[in-house]
């Protein structure tokens, strides 16, 4: 991006300093492709009798709800230098337990609530297991949640006995297919929850503490932030939101497909997070960005189907988007884009500069062991820091 003139240049710079600006551009491009294929693609019609809105844009909002849920949870987890690969499996588990319960329960609003409670409850338990293993046992987040991803899919299968359980419950179905003021219920719930999480983390010190933990676990520990509770809460919240996403995903078809519900959802969530400009190295996060990312993914999904490309191929397109975004985030490519040499040292990930980047070595995987680095670092890690500086110098 070479700035054409100082005034416009600085304004452009202001816009593009928000990384999700690229997400918005991509979203508009996708919609443009759709419009070229079908000029009336964006039309929204109002049903005169029910007042319901319908149209492709509304469909996108409806479909984006589960992705929004897991993306918000993932954003907070990623901000702590973690990752939650188990969200897809948790979706399947919560969907499975609700469907299994509803398949025998009476068709009442009460049993819908019970099913919702059971799904969310079990999801919360799985999230707490993740959280305890990461926060107190000190396991690497990605291996912990990888185990949960593996086991969760198995748990979903055991719950339904390997069947794709279907059920009938009008109240439960309403969650996915009903409307409020013309808008899909799922989207309204998702929007309210996203807003609630945003208020929770931005109007309290919680968000700042999460960012501090992600930017530098050791320093955050020294200023008195206890990582345990924070980590436990973000993993629990992520699983809880994933559980709700699972309810959304199964309620729309009233069937849980144990091997397909939530499959590859972790990719969607990670994609939404990185498109939104939250660095996978942890630290600063942007919930707005993740919302943009979630909408982009849903639009991508819908566009691929619309262009009659086999939907089994969607992962390939998403992978390309992920690679592109990761490349854009990498210092080396940014250096090239700025027309400067990226430098002799290996490019740093776009973490904000911190006095002691004890875990920013690329080999440390997703954040190394955030829970222990504060307590057990000591002289050893200080040595690593010096090495790091020496390499970067």
């Amino acid at each position, binding site marked *: 991006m070479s700035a054409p003139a100082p005034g416009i240049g600085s304004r452009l710079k202001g816009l593009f300093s928000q990384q999700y600006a690229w997400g918005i551009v991509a979203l508009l491009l996708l919609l443009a492709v759709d419009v070229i294929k079908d000029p009336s693609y964006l039309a929204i019609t109002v049903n005169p009798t029910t007042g319901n809105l319908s149209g492709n844009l509304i469909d996108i909002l409806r479909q984006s709800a589960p992705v929004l849920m897991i993306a918000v949870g993932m954003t907070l987890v990623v901000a702590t230098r973690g*990752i939650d690969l188990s969200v897809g499996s948790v979706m399947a588990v919560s969907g499975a337990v609700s469907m299994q319960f509803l398949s025998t329960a009476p068709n009442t609003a009460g049993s819908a609530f019970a099913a919702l409670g059971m799904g969310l409850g079990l999801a919360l338990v799985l999230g707490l297991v993740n959280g305890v*293993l990461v926060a107190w*046992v*000190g*396991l*690497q987040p*990605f*291996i912990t949640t*990888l*185990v*949960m991803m*593996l*086991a969760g*899919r*198995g*748990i979903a*299968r*055991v719950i339904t*006995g*390997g069947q794709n359980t279907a059920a009938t419950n009008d109240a439960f179905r309403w969650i996915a297919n009903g409307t409020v003021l013309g808008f899909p219920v799922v989207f309204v719930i998702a929007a309210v929850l996203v807003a609630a999480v945003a208020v929770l983390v931005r109007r309290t010190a919680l968000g700042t503490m999460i960012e501090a933990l992600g930017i530098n676990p050791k320093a955050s520990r020294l200023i008195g932030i206890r990582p345990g509770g924070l980590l436990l809460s973000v993993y629990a919240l992520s699983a809880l939101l994933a559980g709700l996403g699972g309810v959304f995903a199964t309620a729309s078809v009233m069937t849980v497909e144990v091997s397909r519900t939530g499959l590859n959802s972790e*990719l969607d969530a990670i994609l939404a997070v*990185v498109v939104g400009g939250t660095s*996978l190295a942890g630290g600063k996060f942007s919930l707005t960005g993740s919302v943009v990312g979630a909408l982009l993914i849903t639009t991508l999904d819908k566009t691929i189907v619309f262009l009659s490309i*086999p939907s*089994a*191929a969607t*992962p*390939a*397109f*998403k*992978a*390309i988007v*992920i*690679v592109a975004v*990761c*490349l854009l985030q*990498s210092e*080396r*490519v940014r250096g090239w884009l700025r027309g400067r040499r990226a430098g002799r040292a*290996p*490019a*740093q*990930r776009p973490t904000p500069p911190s006095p002691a980047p004890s875990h920013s*070595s*690329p*080999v440390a*995987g*997703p954040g*190394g*062991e955030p829970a222990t680095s504060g307590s*057990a670092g000591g*002289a*050893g*890690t200080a*040595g*690593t820091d010096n*090495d*790091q500086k*020496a*390499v970067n110098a």
Partner: protein
Amino acid sequence: MSTTLTRPRPTAAQPARRGRGSLLDALPTIASVAILLLMFVYGEAAYGKIFQYNTISNLFINSSYLIILAVGMTFVILTGGIDLSVGSVIAVSSLTGVFMANAGLPVVIVIPVTILVGSLFGLMSGVLVQYFNVQPFIATLAMMFLARGIASIMATTPVRLDDDSSFRSLSEPIKLIDGPKTNDLVVTPSVIIMILVVVAAVLVLKRTRFGRTVYAIGGAENSAGLMGLPVARTKLWVYLISGTLAGLAAVVYTSRTGIAQNVTGVGWELDAIAAVVIGGTMLTGGYGFVLGSVVGALVIGMMTLLITRDGTVPPEATTIITGGILLVFVLLQRVVLLRKKKKA
């Protein structure tokens, strides 16, 4: 193997941390060998017919692709990385192989190309990790989905290898010991390939400069760089090796089953990681051995065998059990690491 050269951690100067293959270091590996033996004994006692030529032969024949994958994964994990793409790479590789074989191309072309498809994905992961500083699990996750998507574009239904294809000859049994009835000790060319891969990997890691660099990077990447070791080149190579071995595993697997699908290999990356971790290789890198991963892969193969023999364990529970075993071993590693820190 674990001298100060191969594990140059900042505190490695302290004598407590460099005991040559100290008991604590080897604890996970010892545990996995014990578990494997226990599984054999339990299987023999509960179901019988375990200590037999044909059971043992089948264990190796069925585990050969997983062992090859686990060997590749060992290289990556030793540097502190991870390769999540291997399962999907197998799908693309085997589909490529089957399509080419069915098109009538000679097997001397088909097999190298099948392997090279794997190398290509490994190369892409390596470039992303090394030159663009993408975290290993993100880069390989992207490759995992890219490969799966490409496989799905190639075919969404199972593709069968022609019955007369010479591709299948890799799984022709060769009798070593002719026992009574079907109880023979047999190997297939695939098993021989697997053994060659294991031997080569052991030699490369133990005896070559490249192998020592791999350990050094896992121990402390920055120090390895400061010592003048070729960190960038080596990291690229480990992903290339992992991808190539995934291609080879695809050849082995396809020759045995004769079928390629876009869903082949879903979850195999987890099996491979589990095998490596069970075998005692530290997920943080810097410590572990190839032979441990072989034991780990055999533990998983044996578990599948026992579950099949038992028949009462629902197949749905298999993933939970694998996950559980993986978790136990990761926890064991954690304990070992904490103990070491205390000692240091």
